[in-house]
């Protein structure tokens, strides 16, 4: 019976597995999200979704196949074989089920989480692409061609072969060129200054001084002195350069040139001497409109912009993320050094080319049992890396208009006086976050990202998430569940062998109509599997809640050992006569 039987078991399993994969492909094709996905993602989405459903259903499919094969196709007909014990006849079958259980482990623990993550990403990317397309078309109709082209490009980055959208983009682009507004020239903007050592800054300053470029000489000498305050030579060079700037007079008696020089000097003083980067930014930004080719203006506009962006964000960039799909409902305890609790809520987090923006930010601070003295909400914010080289990031909560110094967006304070808080240094519309960027995206209500994390990532996150107010037990439950499934696969397959053999058709021919029901067996077994897993999960969750993760893991392993023993004993007890 062994070889023929093994082939029959394998064939039954293959047919049932293929049948269900086909069914899940059809289901995934017709289920709602697939139809509205962009073309390049549609088939990979359908394929991945079918794979996920199939792996999730593999236990009932395999158990049903074992049950059907042993009930219908395996027969002990020869007299000699009838003398053999049942376990001896099915020993090679046990090897097959063990190998299948190992394959299932790889699929369940390795492929399934990444497939779930991939499915979510595809859905998310498609949703974003649709959003950009709708926004591009709206901008096109409103004759905002620059915005339309930018959004068409964002869409086409995700769906490059869409000729219809490509045509719309070309139309918007030609209208943009015709309007003479090409979205602003980048000419004259110097390369960002790379961080150098103090001596190198000083060498640059000396070069510029010898070339009689006193603004640059002063700028680099100040940088060298800031890096190394003991350098008297840098301080002296900066003083000499500033004297030269002060004594400089425009060579031509031209009022415009005089005005430009005065304004540049004023902006430069604001940037370097007063360290008021915001004032400097608006001065150089105004000058850049009239003198876009002036290298000093371009350089200090860039420098002041960088400094401004370290404490604020530009409103046009933040407003552009309104409604863009992102990571939603982020809620966590922001760990602080003092004994105060700080809770942060972020309604949506969106990654863009300009950086990471957040919308609907709310922050509250309180002491245990005491009142709250800080509670604010901000429409937007921008996440920047921490300046102090600690793990984490900072949310800047002050929004600025790129051109209008009078237009600002600051948080609304429900509790707390912003001036007093700023004066005391407690809060200046900069919110340091004490968690990594990766953890931030996971700390969402209900842990929706947990099921797409691998076992090792879950294991590590289980400890860290407690700091942010999320019980590690939920992730521990997910870990136990992942370990439980492969064992259940093997045990339920073995029980199914016994059940199938007990209820075998015997010598008589099975009714032909009965074959019609074969594909439906996994549906019935799925309910029993759910009850079997549910009962074990209840026990494990109880142990997890009372004794902790290590005990729950030990109970899980003992329980599987006992169930495996019972399954093998029941199998060995089957009669062949």
């Amino acid at each position, binding site marked *: 019976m062994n070889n023929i039987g093994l082939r029959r078991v394998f064939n039954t399993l293959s047919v049932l597995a293929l049948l269900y994969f086909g069914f899940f492909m059809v289901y995934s094709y017709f289920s709602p999200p697939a139809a509205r996905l962009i073309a390049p993602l549609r088939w990979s989405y359908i394929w991945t979704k079918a794979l996920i459903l199939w792996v999730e259903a593999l236990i009932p499919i395999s158990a049903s196949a074992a049950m059907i094969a042993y009930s219908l196709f395996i027969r002990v007909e020869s007299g000699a074989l009838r003398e053999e014990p049942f376990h001896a006849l099915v020993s090679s079958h046990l090897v097959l089920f063990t190998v299948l259980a190992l394959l299932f482990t790889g699929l369940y623990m390795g492929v399934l989480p990444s497939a779930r993550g991939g499915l979510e990403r595809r859905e998310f990317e498609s949703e974003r692409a649709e959003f950009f397309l709708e926004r591009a078309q709206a901008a096109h109709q409103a004759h905002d061609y620059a915005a339309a082209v930018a959004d068409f490009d964002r869409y086409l980055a995700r769906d490059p072969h869409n000729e219809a959208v490509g045509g719309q983009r070309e139309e918007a682009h030609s209208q943009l060129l015709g309007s003479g507004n090409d979205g602003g020239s980048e000419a004259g903007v110097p390369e960002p200054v790379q961080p150098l050592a103090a001596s190198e800054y000083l060498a640059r300053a000396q070069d510029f001084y010898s070339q009689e470029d006193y603004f640059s000489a002063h700028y680099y000498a100040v940088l060298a002195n800031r890096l190394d305050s003991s350098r008297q030579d840098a301080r002296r060079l900066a003083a000499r350069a500033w004297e030269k700037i002060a004594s400089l007079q425009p060579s031509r008696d031209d009022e415009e040139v005089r005005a430009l020089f005065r304004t540049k000097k004023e902006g430069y003083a604001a940037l370097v001497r007063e360290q008021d980067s915001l004032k400097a930014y608006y001065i150089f930004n105004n000058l850049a409109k009239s003198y876009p080719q002036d290298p000093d203006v371009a350089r200090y506009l860039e420098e002041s912009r960088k400094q401004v962006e370290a404490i604020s964000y530009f409103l046009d960039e933040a407003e552009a993320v309104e409604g863009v799909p992102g990571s939603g409902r982020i809620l966590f305890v922001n760990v602080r050094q003092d004994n105060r*609790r700080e809770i942060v809520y972020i309604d949506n987090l969106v990654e863009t080319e300009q950086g990471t923006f957040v919308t609907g930010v709310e922050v509250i601070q309180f002491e245990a049992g005491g009142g709250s003295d800080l509670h604010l909400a901000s429409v937007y914010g921008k996440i920047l890396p921490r300046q102090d080289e600690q793990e984490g990031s900072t949310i800047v909560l002050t929004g600025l208009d790129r051109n209008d110094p009078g237009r600002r967006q600051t948080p609304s304070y429900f509790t707390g006086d912003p001036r007093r808080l700023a004066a005391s240094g407690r809060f200046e519309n900069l919110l340091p976050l004490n968690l990594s960027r990766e953890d931030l995206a996971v700390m969402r209500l209900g842990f929706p990202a947990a099921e797409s994390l691998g076992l090792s990532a879950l294991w590590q996150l289980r400890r860290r998430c407690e700091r942010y107010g999320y019980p590690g037990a939920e992730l521990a439950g997910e870990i136990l569940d992942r370990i439980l499934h492969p064992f259940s696969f093997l045990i339920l397959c073995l029980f199914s062998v016994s059940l199938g053999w007990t209820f075998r*058709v015997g010598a008589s021919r099975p009714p032909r109509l*009965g074959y019609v029901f074969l594909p439906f067996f996994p549906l019935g077994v799925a309910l029993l599997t759910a009850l079997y897993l549910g009962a074990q999960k209840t026990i494990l969750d109880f142990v997890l809640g009372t004794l902790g993760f290590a005990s729950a893991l030990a109970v899980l392993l003992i329980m599987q050992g006992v169930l495996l023993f019972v399954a093998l004993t029941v199998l060995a007890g089957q009669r062949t006569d």
Partner: protein
Amino acid sequence: MLESFAVKEILRLLLIFVAVLILVSTLFAALGLLGVLGREYAAKSVPSLSMVLARLPALLLDKLPLTLCTSLLLLLARSGLHPGRSLGAFVVVTAAAFSVLTFLFPLLEAAVPEGEQSRERILSSLLSPGYWRSDGERAYYVESVEEGRFRSLLVVTPDESRARFRYIPAGSTADVPGPAGPGRAAEPAAAFTPEGFAAQLDHELDLLNRELSRASRASRPRYLLFCFAVVFAFMAAIFLMRLSRWPLLNLFLSFLALRCIFYLFRLLREVAASELESLISNQDVMAALPVIGLLVFSGLLLLLHLLFLPVRRGFGGGTA
């Protein structure tokens, strides 16, 4: 001699039925209690023994129809009992199942303590010091809870467009803005909610229990008729165990038919009832809809049984 054997067989079957019933109830109740304890410990509250035992009648009540049909399936699958073999034993087992449902349901219902699922209990399980808990609509964070009083409670309502946080420095659970009443959404730990098929079955059991409760309050004849319809449907489904020469198929069909009874009930209560409301104005007929549905379904199963069953076939699909 024959009569005494029949009486012995009947008594033996009755004893086995009671034993299986107790075993299955114990299993379901034990799992239910572990679930309750797990929830309590997950919520960092230490439950008292009296509190845990007070949940027992509710747990038994929740699973009573499932316990009954599982016990009947286990008993009849192995004993080979059917009307053709021993009508007396069959009638006694059916009557026993009917009696269990008829008498045990009101007893257990009366034993469920008032306010057992009160809003305060659900809220107190939502307040787990140092951790976020969510009821689906809101998230709760609390620094500490002692004897129903808490310190520093933050309630977060993500769907609010402004001021999502509501901070309450100290108070009792009565001050907590939370779910209006008990319900699935109030479950604090998602880990304990059964998924997929099992969740559907839970919902259908809940619907069946509510209907039983409604019928018991309406009138005695209506309640007895409803109990009879349920037990009759169970027995008709289990009859399929003799349908063909292939025992596994019989078992599968029988199991599927039992599952369909619960599904049919949901279909009649949630889908068909709203569709038929405009067509049938008589409230009595509408109230009797589940009973009619169950009886028609049982009749169809019996008809199928009569059409396919050769007279001499043994129970359990033995050789023809």
